[in-house]
């Protein structure tokens, strides 16, 4: 699933006063074009977010935010009817969701800090399986070659909680190494539960 993403974004930031403990209001708008080597996933993604952050101590900063995401997929060909399974729209990657988030950043020492976030997402999720099992409750379904010839991607309405924790270490003034984990748990409107865990590590250099 190699992909290329290109987009535009704008961020407006307003600080309510002078000093590092003053609250900051952030507005972010963005649009991205996502292209995958498996073209069924190609989509234009629009995001809008509003957050308020505040540093409470020299080491602790919290932020509260809300965002909306909408994806307009290019793919339209859905699954045909098959036995008891009805035909479905192929607009799997036409989805939208609202997310509320609470994030915190805690400095551990002069060179490292922790990020933690709790997000509540209300909207569509996309999953891929090798059977039609999820298709019954799905809002749209299509073949998903990224996972094999018989894989089916389907979109469901769901509520998702996302928990993330990252450790970050400043290597030099303009470089950071991070490692962390993310855990997602979703319940669809049809009663299907999904759980996923992600481990990640990376390196950032700003120039």
């Amino acid at each position, binding site marked *: 699933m190699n992909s290329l993403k290109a987009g535009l974004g704008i961020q407006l*930031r307003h*600080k309510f006063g*002078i*000093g*590092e403990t*003053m609250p*900051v209001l952030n507005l972010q708008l963005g649009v991205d074009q996502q292209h995958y080597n498996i073209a069924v996933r190609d989509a234009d993604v629009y995001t809008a977010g509003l957050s308020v952050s505040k*540093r409470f101590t020299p080491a602790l900063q919290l932020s509260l935010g809300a965002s909306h995401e909408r994806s307009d997929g290019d793919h339209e060909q859905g699954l045909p009817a098959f036995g008891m399974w009805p035909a479905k729209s192929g607009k799997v990657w036409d989805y939208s969701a609202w997310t509320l988030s609470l994030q915190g950043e805690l*400095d551990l*020492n*002069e*060179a*490292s*800090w922790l*990020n933690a976030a709790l997000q509540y997402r209300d909207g569509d999720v996309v999953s891929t399986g090798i059977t039609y099992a999820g298709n019954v409750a799905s809002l749209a379904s299509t073949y998903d070659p990224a996972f094999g010839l018989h894989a089916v991607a389907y979109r469901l309405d769901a509520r998702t909680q996302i928990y993330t924790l*990252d450790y*970050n270490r*400043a*290597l*030099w*003034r*303009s*470089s*950071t190494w*991070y490692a962390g984990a993310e855990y997602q748990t979703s319940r669809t409107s049809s009663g299907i539960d999904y759980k996923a865990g992600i481990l990640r590590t*990376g390196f*950032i*250099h*700003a120039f």
Partner: protein
Amino acid sequence: MNFNFRTSVLSATAVLSATAALSTTAALSATSALSATAAHFPTLASTFKAGLLLVVLTIGPGCLAATLNLTLTDQHGTPVEDAVMYVRSIDGSIPPSSPMQVDVDQIDEAFVPHVRAATAGSLVNFPNSDHVRHHVYSFSKAKTFEVPLYSGVPSAPTLFDQAGLVTLGCNIHDHMLGYILILDTPYFSEIRAGKGSIATLPAGELVVEIWHPRLLDAGVITQLLQATADAELNLELQVTLRPERMVRRAPRRSGSRY
């Protein structure tokens, strides 16, 4: 406060000035260490006193000023940057200082220099050499001020009329931190690459202080020295510094460095 130091006090040498008609430089050669302070200040390692009386007898009126040279390293042996050495008093008092005009620039989202020293009553300019605008401010007791969002050179410098430590910040870039140490003494030196020097010091008992923003105990290091006329005092100190604070400046996954 953990530090190790060695001091060596060198005698006056041939630099005894032309004003001294009593030319006894031979007797004041580098082999004699002038340290009358040894009896009073056990921190000095010198043990030579024999030359002192000779110096007193041979240096006439119009004696020259002393020079204080500092070599400062941290606990890793690295030359220290961004420290300030100053003479707090000479024989219990200090002459008045003259105001100056100095700059604190903003380059690559950092105050340059990170530490600046100036005398009370000085004017400080804050040119912005960055490609982004900055909003300089301070809430320090010695000087509370702001230079609202700007680029280039502000229209007027800022007057710092009270002695004390002024901590600088940028309201846009929270990781930016700088210091201006406003002093009420004319005898001071900024330490760069571990070196600093104060010349034209009058003779007397010197109370010398060294300040750095990351000194482990967040204070100053105090040294008591005895300067004789035309003495060259060489002070070598090693200090323990806290690590540089990089958390705020380092990039985040969100792309922000605020």
